[in-house]
């Protein structure tokens, strides 16, 4: 049996198979199928958005914490200076006493 023979056998078999009666089963959607699929589809997309938020939220928290620490470190010297400067500032004249003293 050569390949030409088998090709002919397959061709005949396929031609016969095509003559089989068409599938007579109902092809409309079963009861409730469309409702279920539509609900699942929208639920799925909402879940995707929620899961994206869940995925990004811890990272955002870490980034925020790092930024806080970094900003404190960068500005630490200026915090110290300004605190010291306030302590060292001389007491100026009492504006209330000056006001009443003048009157």
């Amino acid at each position, binding site marked *: 049996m050569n390949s030409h023979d088998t090709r002919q056998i397959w061709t005949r078999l396929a031609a016969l198979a095509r003559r*089989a009666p068409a599938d007579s089963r109902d092809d*409309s959607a079963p009861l409730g199928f469309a409702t279920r699929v539509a609900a699942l589809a*929208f639920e799925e997309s909402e879940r995707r958005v929620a899961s994206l938020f869940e995925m990004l939220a811890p990272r955002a928290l870490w980034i925020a914490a790092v930024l806080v620490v970094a900003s404190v470190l960068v500005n630490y010297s200026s915090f110290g200076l300004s605190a010291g400067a306030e302590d060292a500032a001389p007491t100026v004249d009492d504006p209330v006493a000056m006001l009443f003293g003048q009157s």
Partner: protein
Amino acid sequence: MADDQSFDLAGCLERVRKRDQAAARELVEHLHPMVIRIVRSHLPRRVSEEDLTQEIFLKMFTRIEQYQGAVPFSHWVSRIAVTTCIDHLRAQKRRPEFRWADLSENEADMLDAVMTNENAVDTADALAARELVYKLLDQLRPDDRMVIQLLDLEQKTIAEISALTGWTGSLVKVRAFRARRRLHKLFQELKRKEGS
């Protein structure tokens, strides 16, 4: 589905994009006959047709924002259906070796008749032929099976198969060639086993 001219597909898609669940239901009901026909033609063993159909529709809704209207919507959905069927066919294990003893009496008679070039065929023979064809197709690699089924049973052109599967014309031809070579070997084995 296709003959339902009154269905406002563009309007329905617009509403689905605005997350209108009633529109999504209408779309599923409208497309179901087309999708179920594809599923029934390419249904892998031990997979429920309803589960597979549902998976196809869920993929369709997931990707609906990507649909640009370059091809008719039904073609776009057909492609999703065909590629999902191929994925399932790939996932299933291939059947064990095909033996003459696996054939029913009708199928064995049919194969005998086809091999000896007998022409008398009635409806029962055609049904047996279809069963036999599907048993033979089960022996092929999923991609090759899909191509030969679309070519020889559904009589689609290479261009149509390319559009349905996303494979190039050359790839479709290569897969058809490989499928025919495998069928040749199968027939040879069957002939040998029948004789022994």
